[in-house]
């Protein structure tokens, strides 16, 4: 798919995110907006997904014969919900139930409510990479050549389990795994270098044995090219890490460049101001 088409989808997804968070006055818009271009590229272009004879996506828990995506930083749930709905896994109208009582769209994603497209619960940080590695190893055992993708946050790199997984994947040559870190430099209490300095994540992952790529995460063309390069590096003995520079709040000028919008919902006026900057391309839910 052309990047122009993907950008149109991304604009709608960003509208969905803002409206969902506004609708329940809770949730995490900042990181969701920052990672929108990545998830749109993955689900609408890069990933091979199981479809029926009409070309509609079909959810299968085991992901056999298709690429599998894991969201480790589960707080950007509005983004994954919007992308899954827009891709056709469940009705777009269901987005209105986000974080409300009896919803399948829990505050953080879970398969507990049987939401199509979600295979593991995430929210308690640092666990998704391990799960992604496990599924990648399952694919190898089953001689399934499809890939596993995983997204983590940069604040999430504070968690010790991430580094257990970082050590394990190269040791076991898990080379059917492409992982992204959303490097937006922000976490709840402030800039990552003030809260807990990650220092040079690229050098760290290289030292652990990963192939490391860099990507401009809010540039649709660069996202597409870098993921294509990452796919070419798969199957060569090492897991692949893509460090993705993004802007928290990308797409809405007054939400960018600060951790303020990490976990705060816009009020009515702020929502109107934000939506004025994003074209409604596919119809609001």
């Amino acid at each position, binding site marked *: 798919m052309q990047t122009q088409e993907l950008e149109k989808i991304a604009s709608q997804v960003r509208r969905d995110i803002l409206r969902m968070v506004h609708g329940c006055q809770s949730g995490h818009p900042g990181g969701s907006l920052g990672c929108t271009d990545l998830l749109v590229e993955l689900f609408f272009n890069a990933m091979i997904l199981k479809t029926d004879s009409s070309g509609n996506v079909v959810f299968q*828990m*085991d*992901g*056999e014969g298709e690429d*599998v995506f*894991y969201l480790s930083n589960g707080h950007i749930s509005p983004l994954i919900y919007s992308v899954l709905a827009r891709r056709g896994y469940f009705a777009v109208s269901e987005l209105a139930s986000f974080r409300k009582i009896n919803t399948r769209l829990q505050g953080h994603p*879970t*398969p*507990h409510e049987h939401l199509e497209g979600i*295979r*593991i*619960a*995430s*929210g*308690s940080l*640092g*666990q*998704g*990479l*391990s*799960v*992604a*590695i*496990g*599924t*990648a*190893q*399952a*694919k190898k*055992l*089953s001689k399934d050549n499809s890939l596993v993708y995983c997204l983590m946050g940069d604040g999430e790199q504070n968690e*010790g*389990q991430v580094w*257990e*997984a970082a*050590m*394990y994947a190269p*040791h*076991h040559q898990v080379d059917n795994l492409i992982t992204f870190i959303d490097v937006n430099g922000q976490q709840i209490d402030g800039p990552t270098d003030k809260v807990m300095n990650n220092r040079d994540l690229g050098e760290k992952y290289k030292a652990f044995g990963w192939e490391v790529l860099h990507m401009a995460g809010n540039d649709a063309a660069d996202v597409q090219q870098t993921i294509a390069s990452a796919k070419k590096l798969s199957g060569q003995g090492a897991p692949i890490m893509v460090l993705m520079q993004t802007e928290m709040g990308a797409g809405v000028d007054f939400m960018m460049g600060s951790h303020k919008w990490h976990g705060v919902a816009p009020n009515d006026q702020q929502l109107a101001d934000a939506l004025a900057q994003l074209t409604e391309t596919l119809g609001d839910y």
Partner: protein
Amino acid sequence: MAQYTFETKKDTRSGFGAGMEYLSLNSPKVVALCADLIGSLKLEAFIKNSPERFFQTGIAEANMIGIAAGLAVGGYIPFATTFANFGTGRVYDQIRQSVAYSGKNVKIACSHAGLTLGEDGATHQILEDIGLMKMLPGMVVINPCDYNQTKAATIAVADYEGPVYLRFGRPVVPVFTPENQTFEIGKAIHLMEGADVSIFATGHLVWESILAAEILKENGIHADVINIHTIKPLDTDSVLKSVVKTGCVVSAEEHQYNGGLGDSIAQFLAVTKPTPMEFVGVNDSFGESGKPAELMEKYGLNAASIVEKAMKAISRK
């Protein structure tokens, strides 16, 4: 003459190893993970038979639980193995989010549970693991009593779809249950018939309960002895049937009072049939170094203690 006898003593962890050896040959979807304790978990035969289905995680238990969950998504039946302390308490949140809440078909299989780990001391002697695991919605918790039963339980949990905590231990204990038995999850086993007191035991305390019942019998007291190998789901029908007959209860386990088998039984009886009850277990303390038998005696986890508690329960009828 004693109703139960034995020819050999073996460790329950070796029963687990034998079960895994069976699964390596008969269940191609079973995979095993271990955090640098292959010898302690008796996984050598599994690894020899199916090396491609074994994953060494190093000393990184949190990652091991996550990888197990990911393998389960991919259609495999992972057994994540280590010592009980490191496989439950250390990784509680990983089990909670990635396994239990996510509903993954992961078996957490742990050795060296309880005081009978011995000399290593309290850092390694977890006495809270049954409680931690049974509190998780949907988690099955099993603590078999001897080698044969542990082997059978290992094979049975592989066939069960859903998260399971399988607990076993290090010391050699009498092998008195049948070889090649069928293990039914959630179905208690009635070992001795009696109408004076119900003794509900799990794990290593089952044999001690049999010994206690023999001592009681010499004093004209007949105990109803029941092996509760599955703590969750609790076989409430068996519990109630016995209690209706006896009118008083002793629970026996190598675990804290809080969160253990006795706690589950007391909770059930409190709402169905309030009954005098006594507990054999560790009462809100950590363990310490020592020989297994010395520790079991010091902390009151043996036949003598069960006899004493039985007399007390009967006196409260």
